[in-house]
């Protein structure tokens, strides 16, 4: 009961912070409006998908250090396939990229299950592997993105204040997450994260579920990589700073490391908060390096506070 409240309380608290931040933004920058929202939302996309990817495996009791590298692979694959391709080919390219993502994730998961090496170690090794694959596909920034695809995340959607990129994010997440969470696979993902022995004894195929969770992670990472290519217009083989940021957002979003708890909404709100803080600091013309310090401090203070709360809860 209290647990239930705590979990929803956490998300509610995040929403409150987000609202306060928007008010604050409006105060320091009175012309903050549709275009500001649009660029914020677009800049957030790769972070949001990286976070979603990380959240799924963390709920399943794992972690994936190769998220950013997988995004790079997906990004360059998309850029190479779309280079000079027609509109029809672009759709095929998108499907291929998503399949590549699923495959990469499934390979990560399968290696963890088959080798029985701890997930941190396997995905650390795979971080190098996917980085290498991205470099083999494209040795430097290159390729291009089909214009109609790029426009998918530019400008407003129906009403002027609703950025298309935000709708894109919502559609992608809902399309994958809602059916997943309702399915038995989704339950199994929570189950193996919560207690894998109990899950095994309840008849859950732990190995297969773990592979599936990593495959979903790869899928989200691929969409994230795709949005990178969509927003920059070319493919970049060197992974961006998405690993640390995604772990931060997942923790801030109330997904407990160790698994079994949390959902996608909290982490996504956390991503928006972190991006908004960065934007506000830029608006206040704070040194971007100080911004990094502030971001890091927020993350550390939040996890320390959360840690103390969790510890007290356990010892009451």
């Amino acid at each position, binding site marked *: 009961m209290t647990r239930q409240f705590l979990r929803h309380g956490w998300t509610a608290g995040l929403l409150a912070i987000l609202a306060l931040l928007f008010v604050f933004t409006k105060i320091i920058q009175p012309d903050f409006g549709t275009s500001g929202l649009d660029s914020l939302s677009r800049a957030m996309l790769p972070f949001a998908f990286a976070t979603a990817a990380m959240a799924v495996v963390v709920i399943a009791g794992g972690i994936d250090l190769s998220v950013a590298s997988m995004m790079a692979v997906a990004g360059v694959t998309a850029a190479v396939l779309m280079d000079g391709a027609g509109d029809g080919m672009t759709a095929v390219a998108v499907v291929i990229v998503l399949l590549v993502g699923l495959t990469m994730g499934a390979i990560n998961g399968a290696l963890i299950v088959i080798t029985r090496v701890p997930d941190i170690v396997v995905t650390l090794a795979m971080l190098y592997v996917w980085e290498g694959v991205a470099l083999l596909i494209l040795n430097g920034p290159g390729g291009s993105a089909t214009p109609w695809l790029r426009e998918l995340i530019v400008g407003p959607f129906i009403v002027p204040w609703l950025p298309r990129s935000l709708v894109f994010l919502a559609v992608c997440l809902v399309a994958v997450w809602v059916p997943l969470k309702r399915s038995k696979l989704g339950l*199994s993902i929570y189950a193996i994260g*919560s207690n894998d*022995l109990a899950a095994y004894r309840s*008849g859950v195929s732990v190995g297969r579920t773990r592979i599936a969770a990593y495959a979903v992670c790869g899928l989200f990472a691929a969409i994230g990589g795709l949005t990178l290519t969509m927003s920059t217009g070319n493919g970049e083989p060197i992974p961006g700073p998405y690993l640390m940021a995604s772990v931060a957002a997942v923790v801030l979003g109330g997904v407990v490391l160790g698994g079994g708890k949390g959902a996608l909404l909290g982490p996504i709100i956390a991503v928006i908060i972190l991006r908004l803080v960065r934007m506000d600091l830029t608006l206040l013309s704070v040194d971007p390096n100080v911004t990094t310090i502030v971001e890091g401090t927020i993350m550390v203070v939040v996890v320390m506070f959360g840690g103390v709360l969790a510890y007290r809860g356990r010892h009451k």
Partner: protein
Amino acid sequence: MTDQQAQTPLLDAKGVSKRFGAVVALEDASLTISAGQIVALMGANGAGKSTFVKILTGALKPDTGHVRIRGTERRVGSPAEARRSGLVPVYQEPSLIPDLSIADNLRLGDTPVADFQHWVHELGIDGLHLDDMISALPLATLRILDLARALAVKPDVLLLDEMTAALPTDLVEKVLDTVRKQADAGQSVIYISHRFSEIAEICDRATVLRDGATVGDLPITPGVEEKVVELMLGAVLDKDPTRTSTAAHRPEGMPRVTVRNLAAGTKLQDVSLDLYRGEVLGVVALEGQGQDQLFDVLAGMDSPTAGTIALDGKTVSFNHPADAIAAGLSFVPGDRADGLLMERSVHENIALPQLARFAKWGAIGMKKEAATVKKAIDRLQIDTRAQGEVQRLSGGNQQKVTIGRWIAAGVDTLLLFDPTRGIDVRTKRQIYLLVRELAEQGAAVLYYTSELAEVPAACDRAMVIFNGKVVDVIEAADADEQTLMRAAYGLTASAAVSA
């Protein structure tokens, strides 16, 4: 039971063997069970019982031998497959997912909800919602839910592993009733327990394992206990070690530990006791009457909400177990997994308390340490063949290690929380003898046990806690099971006596 039924066994395991590296866990284990039978699977710790269970339920594959279900050989590869073939286990650790609701747990295992609810009701648990999170429920309830979930899929063979271990006595009765009815309806049960009384009450036969092999299969008749113990131990033991010291022996002077009106958590309401040097004070209580909190507070694991603790007359308060240890209180937890460094050696486990203090962070005197550790190992007769990693030891030997570290550190006051739970008869007897010996050498021992029959053997007197309060103090001479049981249920005339 007719002969015909006996000829077509539901489950038939023959010649099962399993090795882990150099260790032979099972040599030649067999078990046959026909429809409508309840068979007790018995064996001392290290006899291979848990390996055998894992093989029967598909968690492990046997090296040799076969497991036949209804006469056809079944290579069971996972618990899910075992379930499909009609064999459903209920483990000591409830296999429910803590972070999911009851309903989600049922969905996960494809359990029919209506049947589940029927069995929950039958087993005497009310007031549950299907939306309740598993992590918010007490252990006893979880075990019942686990059992109800198993019963709901109508298993041919139900395997119960120490089903009654964490249950209060009223639930134990319900469980035994239900199990018996299950058998009367033609389904079979494999019943694993250390409690003879329960086995005598409901089982038809007992299959006994020793050193990885089935050494006997006996019908349950009055007085079969001695025979089973004999088979489990492999040699005739002398009779129960009834104590040599007289019960009239009552220590005098300043009590070592004085507790007054202690309260903690939600369970421990108001407990007072005096524990003297040279005595073993038993604590008897049904599950969840506040005894856990009493021990946690005395061990410095938890802080009291009210009341005082005094040692040798001086009031103390502990912020950390280290404070309690410094004051001479040593705690042996009920769960061995809480007490041991499983992947470290016997040596390191025993030496641990002596290195804990900041002042001991420097160089270790290896020779002195080795001598201390050896003394503890010798005194407790710990089997050190697998001493490289404690997790390779049998349960009984593991328990000896948790006690041994305090023997090595020098015992002053020992807090033992159910030290004989789930361990074999031989080790149990060794522990009684050790506890008596320590007391005779001047130690004060507080001894909680979930097995009432232990009280006269190990304790000088027993304090009964009911509903978080002391309801009776009984001298060992009078502490037969009926008396203790009545007191534990709060049925005594002389309520609320201070110990």
